[in-house]
């Protein structure tokens, strides 16, 4: 086959590939995670920490525990403040749907602690108001969670559970500030 024909075919294939990849990237990029952007402070009265069972060692949050979601390029980032305000977040997590990410914080990406180098996670966007996350430690599922913003944009609820005991959850409710 003449080189010109092969070259033309390869160029055509490249075009198709580039178009397919751009469609793929478009489909996976957060079309609109705008409802999450902002400062969310915990509502201790509505929050129920029961992930480790009714008699388990469940986490206690401070009354000022706060998430701040900020735009981060084409995606968003979640900054976590165990108490708020304070000069800098305790940890952060990029929210890039459909991609496995390594914990980039110096501290653990989990309140429960652990080695950040062993921690990975992936977000899945159901729609503009609902995200799901899988968290792995040493490639084993450690935690499932969902984050949902109410239709009116005033309340965000984070539900998380262990893969061993989905019947026990931490249900954390946050108010938009």
């Amino acid at each position, binding site marked *: 086959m003449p080189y010109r024909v092969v070259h033309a075919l*390869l160029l055509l294939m490249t075009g198709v590939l580039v178009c397919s990849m751009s469609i793929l990237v478009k489909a996976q990029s957060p079309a609109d995670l705008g409802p999450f952007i902002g400062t969310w402070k915990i509502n201790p009265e509505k929050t129920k920490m029961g992930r480790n069972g009714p008699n388990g060692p469940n986490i206690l949050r401070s009354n000022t525990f706060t998430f701040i979601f900020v735009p981060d390029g084409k995606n968003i980032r979640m900054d976590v403040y165990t108490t708020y305000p304070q000069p800098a977040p305790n940890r952060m997590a990029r929210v890039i749907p*459909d991609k496995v990410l390594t914990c980039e914080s110096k501290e653990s990406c989990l309140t429960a602690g652990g080695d950040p180098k062993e921690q990975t996670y992936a977000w*899945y966007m159901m729609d503009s108001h609902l995200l799901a996350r899988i968290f792995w430690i040493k490639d084993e599922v450690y935690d499932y969670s969902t984050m949902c913003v109410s239709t009116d944009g005033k309340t965000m609820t984070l539900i998380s559970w262990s893969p061993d*005991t989905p019947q026990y959850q931490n249900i954390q409710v946050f108010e938009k500030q």
Partner: protein
Amino acid sequence: MQTSFHRLSTRYSLIRLAASMCAALLVALGTTAHAQNQNDLSAFVGRWQINLGQTRMNRGNHITRSDSFTFVFELAKAGLMMHVYANYPQAAPTRSNLIIPDQKSHQCESSAGCLTVGGTASDQSYSYSQISSHMLIRVFYVKGKVDEYSTYSVSADGKTFTMIAWGAEAPDRQNVQVFSKQLE
């Protein structure tokens, strides 16, 4: 000599181009975590009876469950078939719906509607996403608007199934329904 050099150069360029395309494709596929590609849904298959002791209906939509409320999941061609029994056993399921975890909207095909609270089946549609082999998420639409979100999660040991559902307006209030796996 020049022609021969040109041909070699063209051949090298073509090889480089082809290699770049392959590499780009591999990178695109390799760095993407496709939750929807984990097609094994066998953890859900079986009969699940409600555990009222662990179930908490706090959503405020006044649903009460009988102590024999049961889900039966069967493998279907494109996913799962979910049969809902308001009481178990009974002659036929109260309603059934197909679970195709493709993140696409599917029309409710059950004549009884696809929600416990009722409504018109023709107004109802839903989509499922598979997060893992043990977790699904459903987005439920009424007249094209999001009405409800729910998560379906099977414990690692396969003995417990938990469904958490909430309205789009109030995710802070949920129905948490816990089910125990039954012997066939």
